[in-house]
């Protein structure tokens, strides 16, 4: 189980609230943690909604992760970590590939593979330890 500490993003450090795909603000993180601008938040919402609408009835984790909208979310990098973690907290979904790609770590124990709620809990624990969630 990886527990490496990540460097925190420095580009988006505005004080505007974070936003979820459902439009509710994300609880603010700790001071100095990566924040996301409203513009980036809106981009995340749009891409997440597009991914949900277009991924279809697939079982393939690889196929879901290769969707262009999902890849764009990965491309947004560390700045979207709080949003991804908050999504897991409110509505667990297949954000694990993105989280691994962005962070380079995997806090999910092997026995929890495939168990969506257990995987989400492992990532949320990691997020709190790293200061991405309050």
């Amino acid at each position: 189980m990886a527990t490496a500490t990540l460097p925190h993003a420095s580009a988006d450090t505005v004080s505007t609230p974070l936003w979820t795909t459902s439009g509710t603000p994300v609880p603010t993180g700790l001071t100095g943690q990566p924040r996301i601008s409203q513009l980036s938040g809106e981009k995340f919402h749009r891409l997440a909604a597009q991914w949900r609408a277009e991924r279809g009835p697939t079982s393939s984790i690889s196929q879901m992760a290769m969707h262009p909208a999902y890849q764009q979310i990965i491309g947004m990098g560390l700045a979207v970590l709080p949003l991804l973690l908050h999504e897991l907290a409110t509505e667990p979904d297949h954000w694990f590939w993105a989280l691994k790609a962005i962070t380079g770590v995997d806090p999910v124990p092997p026995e929890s593979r495939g168990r969506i709620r257990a995987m989400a809990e492992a990532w949320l624990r990691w997020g709190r330890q790293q200061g991405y969630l309050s």
Partner: protein
Amino acid sequence: MSFYRYFPQLAHTGCRIVSACSREYNCIAWAAGEQDRWWWPDANDIGYWPADVPREETIDAFIRAYQTLGFASCDDATLEPGSEKVAIYALAGKPIHAARQLSNGRWTSKLGNCEDIEHTLDGLTGSTYGSVVQIMRRPRI
């Protein structure tokens, strides 16, 4: 998300929705009789996959995964009293879906993040899931 647009054959063969949407499990798990984890041999070690079976998206790996549960390959999709069967669908040579036969001869599938449905094998063939490439069976418990 309505799944019907992905499976135009269902308009002719019919289907019955038997459960609500869930992200807790997928078709591979459902065909294996599980409802609490998502089976997939992705290269990123996210999905569950049986130990000692290659984590690769090949028909052979999917056959080997079901072999761990006592299924053996066969070439007959008809209902056989005393047997439980699964069908593996593939598209362009890649496994994409699995269904399990019910005791009434119809088949049950979990459609990705969507519902479980009862259907015919032909009902899910097409550009989304491809076609059935392998039938497997084991003694019905």
